[in-house]
């Protein structure tokens, strides 16, 4: 169907369109670029916050405190029983000495008061880490209650208040994120589809002339689709570049923040290319049908 002449024609028409619509093309690319930048900033913030949350979740443990003077063997039994519980990722033995040292570190300068102690008042403990998807208060409560019944276990605790408050916070964050994300996404789609529509309207005359001389719909459409795709690539590339600049500045003040991985960057640009092409396709098709 598509011979060499058609291919040449399509390449010629597409480059012509991109070259000729310099100013209006530039303007739409800038508008789209900035719209996408807003979306990207939003996504990057979401990514960073959720990473902080994930990291925080990893440091949430259930502590199973052991009775004083317990032998190695019963400790090992308790440890294995904990490991047998579905959803438990790991169990680490924390000796009373370690616990005291950590406590000392946490106290910092005021650690002197510990010197007053004649013996170590802290118990040995087993630190239980859950799988991330099960790091929630209901599950931790279950572990703590179960372990408390066992022989050799003095007590089992987790930071109930903290975990519950954290859970609320995360839920709130994701809900607002979702709502905001939807609004941003819809506005971006709106701005971009309008930009595409306007740029096609401005070429209504040439589309009509093309039809007049016997161009098939696909002949008319293909250059528009390619143009849309290229605009998608350029504007999303621009948005990524701007985001990187914003990110570099932000990093000075928030050293821990991360950027998208390369797969994410490429994926986003490819997605925008497809969206640009699809947007142009839909806009021109509507226009050709009349």
């Amino acid at each position, binding site marked *: 169907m598509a011979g*060499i*002449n058609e291919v040449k024609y399509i390449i010629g028409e597409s480059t012509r369109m991109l070259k*000729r619509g310099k100013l209006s093309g530039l303007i739409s690319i800038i508008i789209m670029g900035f719209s996408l930048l807003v979306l990207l900033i939003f996504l990057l913030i979401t990514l960073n916050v959720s990473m902080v949350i994930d990291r925080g979740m990893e440091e949430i443990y259930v502590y199973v405190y052991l009775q004083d003077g317990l032998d190695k063997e019963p400790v090992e039994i308790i440890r294995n029983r904990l490991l047998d519980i579905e959803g438990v990722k790991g169990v680490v033995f924390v000796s009373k000495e370690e616990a005291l040292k950590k406590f000392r570190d946490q106290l910092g300068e005021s650690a002197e008061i510990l010197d007053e102690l004649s013996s170590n008042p802290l118990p040995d403990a087993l630190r239980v880490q859950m799988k991330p998807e099960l790091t929630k208060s209901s599950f931790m409560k279950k572990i703590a209650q179960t372990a408390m019944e066992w022989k050799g276990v003095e007590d089992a605790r987790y930071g109930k208040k903290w975990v519950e408050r954290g859970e609320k916070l995360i839920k709130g964050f994701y809900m607002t994120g979702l709502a905001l994300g939807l609004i941003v996404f819809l506005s971006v789609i709106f701005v971009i589809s309008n930009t595409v529509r306007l740029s096609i309207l401005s070429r209504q005359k*040439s589309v009509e002339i*093309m039809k007049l*001389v016997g161009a098939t*719909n696909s*002949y008319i459409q293909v250059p528009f689709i390619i143009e849309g795709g290229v605009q998608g690539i350029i504007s999303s590339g621009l948005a990524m570049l701007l985001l990187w600049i914003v990110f570099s500045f932000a990093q000075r003040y928030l050293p821990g923040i991360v950027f998208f991985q390369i797969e994410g960057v490429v994926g986003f640009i490819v997605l925008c290319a497809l969206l640009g092409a699809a947007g142009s396709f839909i806009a021109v098709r509507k226009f050709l049908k009349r």
Partner: protein
Amino acid sequence: MPKQNRIIAGVYHLSKKLGKDFALRDINIQLANGEFVFLVGPSGAGKSTLLKMMYMDDLPDSGQVIMGSYVSTRMKRSTIPELRRKTGIIFQDFRLLEGRTVFENVALAMKVAGTGMAEIKREMTDILTRVGLYHKRYQFPGSLSGGEQQRVAIARALANKPVILLADEPTGNLDPEVTREILELLFRINSSGTAVLMATHDVDLVKSFGQRIIYLRDGRIVKDREMLFRGNLRDTLSDSHVDYRARKFTDNAIGEDNGKNE
């Protein structure tokens, strides 16, 4: 060579409503190969609508249009571009692409028909010479006069060697001098075998030529005067062409017309 009297285009019992009113009502026309026909009527008579039906920019409400092998009631929409490539169309407002040179405007019609650049270049010399614009091939429409722009449009219409040229008020934007030049060009094109159907509101302009004239008023054909020398079309055409040049533009000496519109 196709036979002289073969019907190449026909409109049969065609009616078309635009809004509530009939724009065209029960129109019947047949065009023979190589014929030159004027379609005359005041503005709003339905000339443009009829031409639109013929290049199938719009479809009739009832009746049928046949253009070569394309039948309006029996064709897919997707074959319309094919029909357009075999039909030359020109307008009052030229409809050229401003951002493209004369050469590119004409080449576009050939490109969309799948013609390669080498062949386009080969053909272009001939086409642009015929319309007298070879020396201006790299200029843009904006730098050309109205008459020259219409010549570009004509060149584009001829690019794919159509059997029929539809002209919708092609001299409407042009002064009398240029109008005459464009008409001369259309006659010349016709004498090399392309049928021409030219719509115009200007009765005085066309009735001196001795061509077939179809009068359209309020969407109906009020008169369709067939050519007198139908049998020897080519001779008649070249005769009229000579006549026309000899008699000058304003001279209405020829007695074939009834003078109804005087």
